């Protein structure tokens, strides 16, 4: 049996490279000020989905919710081997917490269904909450297997997965369809395929095509779109209008958690004692720790 997977991916700020000016006064993140990367565990999730396709056949589609420039991330997915990519994007979805995010993602997945397996990374490095996967599963009424380390076997509608738990691991057998979140160690993402990069570097969203036609009276966006669709280079964008969403459950307004206060951490003048990095300094330090009753 072959399997149809959808992988939820996210473009995240590279938290290792954060400069000032990233926080907006309302406490949300000014993402435009940050370099972005493919959330590492989502990339592993895509790799696992591609491996499943290599082994059993089927399809791998990817889905991201984010700003329009998240199309970069979707092209990366196509370079790795995804069959199709979808962007969920609308100003009305901005400022969403995990609950509002999972609501929109679940509606988008309903639209893209049917599917056998939904994959996602365990968590995104910009919040580390690990909540969106389980919340999306709950909204779709799907079982979930979190912290997957390996897919051992798939047979008919059953999948066997090894997952991490505190103090060890479990082997679980689940009935499809279900949602799986994946830890970093599960696989090493394959590099981009040169051939695919050549083919898909021209894959574009509608907005990108509109930009290409700007100031060019000979190009019509509808024609262009048709051409891109026929070449398999069109990345569909799903907006609030395309999804049957209740707007009161989307974006900042649909988020039960609110940022009440942000405090910068200002370290007070350091009251510590400086110890010279010398042999004598270390001897003196040991004496002090003996006085403190830590040693001796």
């Amino acid at each position: 049996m072959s399997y149809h997977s959808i992988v939820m991916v996210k473009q995240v700020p590279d938290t290792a490279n954060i400069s000032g000016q990233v926080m907006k006064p309302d406490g949300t993140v000014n993402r435009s000020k940050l370099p972005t990367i493919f959330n590492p565990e989502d990339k592993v999730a895509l790799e696992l989905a591609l491996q499943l396709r290599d082994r059993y056949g089927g399809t791998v589609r990817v889905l991201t919710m984010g700003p329009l420039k998240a199309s970069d991330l979707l092209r990366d997915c196509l370079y790795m081997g995804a069959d199709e990519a979808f962007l969920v994007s609308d100003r009305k979805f901005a400022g969403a917490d995990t609950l509002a995010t999972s609501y929109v993602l679940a509606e988008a997945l309903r639209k893209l269904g049917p599917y056998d397996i939904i994959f996602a990374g365990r968590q995104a490095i910009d919040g580390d909450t690990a909540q969106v996967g389980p919340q999306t599963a709950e909204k779709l009424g799907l079982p979930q297997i979190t912290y997957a380390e390996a897919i051992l076997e798939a047979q008919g509608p059953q999948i066997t997965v090894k997952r991490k738990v505190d103090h060890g691991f479990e082997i679980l057998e689940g009935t499809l369809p279900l949602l799986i979140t994946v830890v970093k160690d599960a696989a090493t993402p394959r590099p981009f395929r040169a051939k695919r990069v050549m083919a898909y570097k021209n894959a574009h969203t509608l907005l990108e095509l509109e930009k290409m036609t700007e100031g060019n009276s000979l190009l019509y966006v509808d024609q262009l779109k048709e051409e891109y669709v026929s070449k398999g280079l069109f990345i569909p964008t799903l907006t609030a209008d395309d999804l049957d969403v209740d707007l009161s459950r989307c974006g900042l307004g649909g988020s039960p958690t609110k940022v009440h206060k942000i405090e910068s951490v200002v370290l007070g003048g350091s009251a510590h004692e400086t110890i010279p990095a010398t042999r004598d300094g270390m001897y003196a330090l040991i004496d002090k720790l003996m006085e403190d009753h830590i040693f001796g």
Partner: protein
Amino acid sequence: MNENTQKVWVFIEQHEGVPADVSLELLSKGRKLAESLNGELQAVLIGHDLQALAAETFRYGAREVLLADHPQLAHYNTLPYSRIMSELVDRHQPRIVLFGGTFIGRDLAPRVASHTRSGLTADCTDLQIADVTYLRKDYSQLLLQIRPAFGGNIIATIICPDSPVQMATVREGVMEKIPLAQPVDGRITPVPYSPSAADQLVRIIARHHEESKVNLKAAPIIVAGGYGMGNWQNFQILYELARVIGGEVAGTRAAVDAGFIDQVRQVGQTGVTVRPKLYIACGISGAIQHRAGMCDSNKIIAVNDDPDAPIFGVCHYGIVGDVMEVIPKLIDAYKHKLK
């Protein structure tokens, strides 16, 4: 108990009848929150054969234990546990629900929060009750969910002003475990469970459990390394120092991500919180997420070649220098003085 009494719930995680430390820590914190609310602390316990554990929660101030006891619930399984928990939250509308930030808590809490449409904040480092004005509206006695956020130089206070139920996860060690001298006279309320086929859509077919040999919380001395250790080989010198002075080795998130050390030894917001007698921070810059997990140590030594590293703002003894030169000297000095 009055119907309108505000309830603070703690989900009690257990393995074969032994509670997770973090659950007892959360009961201790939940007791304080319940006092602030003039409400009642309650525990939710799901599993099999748990009468003794139910009684143990009374030692931490739980006035009521909601106990779902059934052979099929002996081991954590997402679907039945989240169904039971969601139904209980729907029915009883607790004001606050706390979960440990463990594999189980992080699997369960988001599912329950999604079902009940509650606000949920992960990995809080502090929880308080306060009256809040938000967007010109006054809210009384909200749960302040405090956590370091984004990039590490800010502390965010999250609230759920319009959510009847406020949920949070907290990592092990963040709150202190404080048993009462006298257990409270609590009651056990059985929660009926009727197995359904849907609960078995995911079945556990094998389980491998090994108690972690690492117990950072109990270590009197911790030698910790950060990304500044440079590489895995350099990191090994910390094991030598720890062996000589009788400590455990730990690492920062960055050191774990770089593969210098295993995640079970991670100290900080998304790892474990420790309060040893002595904490030696080597090659650690001191991001807030890390400091949140170690700043209550009795004495802190920081070794870093950057004199402006934030870690020097929380240490008692600061050594500016190359870790790979300083640590051998410290080992020699210790051996000379104390051996």
